[in-house]
C-alpha cells in the first residue's frame, strides 16, 4: 500500500476519533452548558491509562519510567482506559458541580489541565515525562498484515463513532434531554420543578468522559505513542472549533464540524507556502483554527447545523376548535 493510501487511512481514522471527541464535548458544552475547555485532559486520561494497561512494566533503572504496565491485551486495555476516564470525570465532576458556578468551573478546568501538564512533564516517573509512552501494541496487530490492520482499525473507529452518535442521539431525544436543556437554560427554574441540576450535569459530564476515554484509548492504540504535546490546550481547540462551526447542541453538527475543521487543517497546509520552518506552519494552522472560531462566533454563533428547537414530543393540534372541541393530543415526531 502506498504512502498516499496510508495517509488516507490515517486521516479517516483520525476524523472518526475526533468525531467521537466532538460528540462527547458537545454533550458537555452544547447540551449541558458545561464550559469544559480542558476536554483534551479527559482524552489524555484515556490514552495514558490504556497505555499503562497495555505495555509491559518499565524496566528497572532504565531511561523510561512510568507507573503500571500490566501487559493486558485488547480489549481489556481499552476498557481499563475508559474506566479510568470515567473515574477521573466522576471525581472532577463531584468536586466541581456542587460548588462552582460556570465561570469558576471553566477557569478551574484550565488550571487542572495546565497543572497536570506541568506535573506530568516534570515528574518523570509517572508517565515518562515529556517523552511519554510508546510501544503500545494495537489490537490484533500481530495477526493482521499492515494493510488489513489499517482497514480493521478504520472499521473499528467508524463503528465506534456511529455507536456513540446513535447512543447520544437516543439519550438526548428523551425526557433526559429535555430536563438537561432546562437545567442549561435556567438551572433554578429546573430545580424548582424537582430536577437535580447536579445529577443531570454529572450524567452529561460522565457521558462526555466516556466518549473522551474511548477516543483517547483508540488514539493511543492506533498511534502507539502519546506524550504531553498531544494534549496541549490547543488540541482542545480542534474539538471546540468542530462544535462552534458545526453546531452546538446538535449531534449531526458535531460530526459535520469535525469534517470541516479537519478538512481546513489538511487543506490549509497546501495553501500556506513553506517559506517558514515547520514550526511556523504548525503555528499558523492553530491560528487559522482560532480565527475560524472567532469568525463563526461573530457571524453564525449557532453553527452550520443549529440546535433543533424542540427535539421532544410535539403535540399536533387540529385547529378546528369551534364545534367538535379540541382534538385529543397525538404525539407528532
Amino acid at each position: 500500500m502506498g504512502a498516499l493510501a496510508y495517509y488516507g487511512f490515517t486521516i479517516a481514522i483520525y476524523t472518526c476519533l475526533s468525531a467521537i471527541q466532538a460528540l462527547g464535548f458537545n454533550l458537555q458544552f452544547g447540551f449541558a452548558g458545561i464550559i469544559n475547555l480542558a476536554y483534551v485532559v479527559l482524552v489524555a486520561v484515556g490514552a495514558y491509562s490504556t497505555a499503562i494497561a497495555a505495555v509491559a512494566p518499565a524496566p528497572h533503572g532504565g531511561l523510561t519510567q512510568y507507573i503500571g504496565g500490566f501487559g493486558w491485551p485488547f480489549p481489556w486495555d481499552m476498557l481499563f482506559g475508559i474506566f479510568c476516564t470515567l473515574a477521573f470525570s466522576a471525581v472532577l465532576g463531584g468536586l466541581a458541580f456542587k460548588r462552582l458556578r460556570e465561570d469558576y468551573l471553566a477557569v478551574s478546568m484550565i488550571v487542572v489541565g495546565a497543572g497536570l501538564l506541568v506535573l506530568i512533564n516534570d515528574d518523570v516517573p509517572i508517565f515518562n515525562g515529556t517523552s511519554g509512552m510508546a510501544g503500545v501494541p494495537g489490537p490484533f496487530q500481530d495477526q493482521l498484515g499492515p494493510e488489513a490492520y489499517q482497514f480493521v482499525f478504520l472499521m473499528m473507529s467508524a463503528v465506534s463513532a456511529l455507536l456513540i452518535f446513535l447512543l447520544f442521539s437516543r439519550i438526548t431525544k428523551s425526557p433526559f434531554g429535555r430536563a438537561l436543556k432546562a437545567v442549561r437554560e435556567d438551572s433554578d427554574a429546573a430545580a424548582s420543578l424537582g430536577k437535580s441540576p447536579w445529577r443531570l450535569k454529572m450524567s452529561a459530564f460522565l457521558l462526555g468522559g466516556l466518549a473522551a476515554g474511548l477516543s483517547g484509548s483508540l488514539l493511543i492504540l492506533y498511534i502507539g505513542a502519546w506524550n504531553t504535546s498531544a494534549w496541549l490546550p490547543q488540541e482542545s481547540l480542534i474539538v471546540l472549533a468542530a462544535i462552534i462551526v458545526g453546531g452546538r447542541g446538535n449531534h449531526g453538527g458535531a460530526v459535520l464540524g469535525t469534517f470541516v475543521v479537519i478538512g481546513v487543517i489538511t487543506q490549509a497546509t497546501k495553501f500556506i507556502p513553506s517559506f517558514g520552518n515547520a514550526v511556523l506552519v504548525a503555528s499558523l494552522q492553530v491560528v487559522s483554527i482560532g480565527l475560524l472560531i472567532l469568525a463563526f462566533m461573530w457571524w453564525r454563533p449557532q453553527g452550520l447545523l443549529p440546535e433543533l428547537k424542540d427535539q421532544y414530543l410535539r403535540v399536533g393540534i387540529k385547529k378546528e376548535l369551534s364545534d367538535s372541541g379540541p382534538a385529543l393530543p397525538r404525539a407528532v415526531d
Partner: protein
Amino acid sequence: MVASGIPTATSAEIRPVMALDLNEVSCSYGGTKAVRSVSFSIPKGAYVALIGPNGAGKTTLLNCISGYNSNYRGRVLFDGHDISRKPLHHVANQSLARTFQVPRIYRRMTVVSNVMLGARRQIGESVLGAVLGTWRKQEAENLERAWALLTRFGLERVADNYGAELSGGQERLVELCRVLMLKPRAILLDEPFAGVSPANRRRLADLILELKSDPDFTILMVEHRLEWVDQLCERTIVLANGAVIADGTLAELRGQKSVIDSYLGSTEIA
C-alpha cells in the same frame, strides 16, 4: 393577633400536622436584615396571603422557604418534614412548589414541553431510562395530563408555541400549569396577578379557587392587589421590615394601626 411559634401539644390534644411551619426564620443580605425571626404556621387546606410594603422581605421569605436561598437561620417544616436549608429540587420533590415573581418559562421550548417538565419521577430523565426507551408509556400518560391542564386553563391554542411567543398573562398561566403537573400539596405563589391582563385575572382567580376543591391543598400567596387577597384568602399575614406585624382576616387587619402605619411610607394604598 400575631401568630405564635409552633404550639406545643398538651397531653390531651393531638395537634394536626401543619402544612407549613416557620420557626424563627431570619435572613441577612449584605448587611441588611431582610427577614427577622419570622414564625407562623399554616394548616392544611388554608389559603394564606402574605402582604406588606415593598422591600418588606416577602419574596426573600418565599426564597428561603422554597430553598432558592439557603443562607438563613431558623426552621422550616413542610407537612412535618424539616426542609430547612434544603436545595430547591429537594423542596420541590417534597411536593412544595413555587412560582416566581417574573415567570421563568423556557423561551426556547414549546408550551407543551414546558408543562411536561413539571411531571415528576420521569423514567426518561435518567440516562438508563433514556437509553432503554422505557419512558414512552409514562410520557404518553403525562402528555394526557398536561393536555388536560392546558385545556382547563384555555391554553390549547398556544400549546405548540414557543415560550418566547407568549404574552405575560399566558406565561403566568403556563407557569401555573407546569407547577400543577408536579401534583404539589402546596404552592408558594409570588405575585400571581402581576403582569396579567384584566381579562385574564378573573380566569386566574377562578382557577385558583377551583383548586380549593382539594381540602388538603394549601397556598401561600404574596400579592399586592388586596381585592384578590380578599376573594381568595381567608387569612392574611402582614410583613414589614422583615418581621410579622399582623396576622388575621383582612377585615381585622384593616382596623389595625400598625398595619396602616407600615404602609404610610410606601406608595401602596391599603
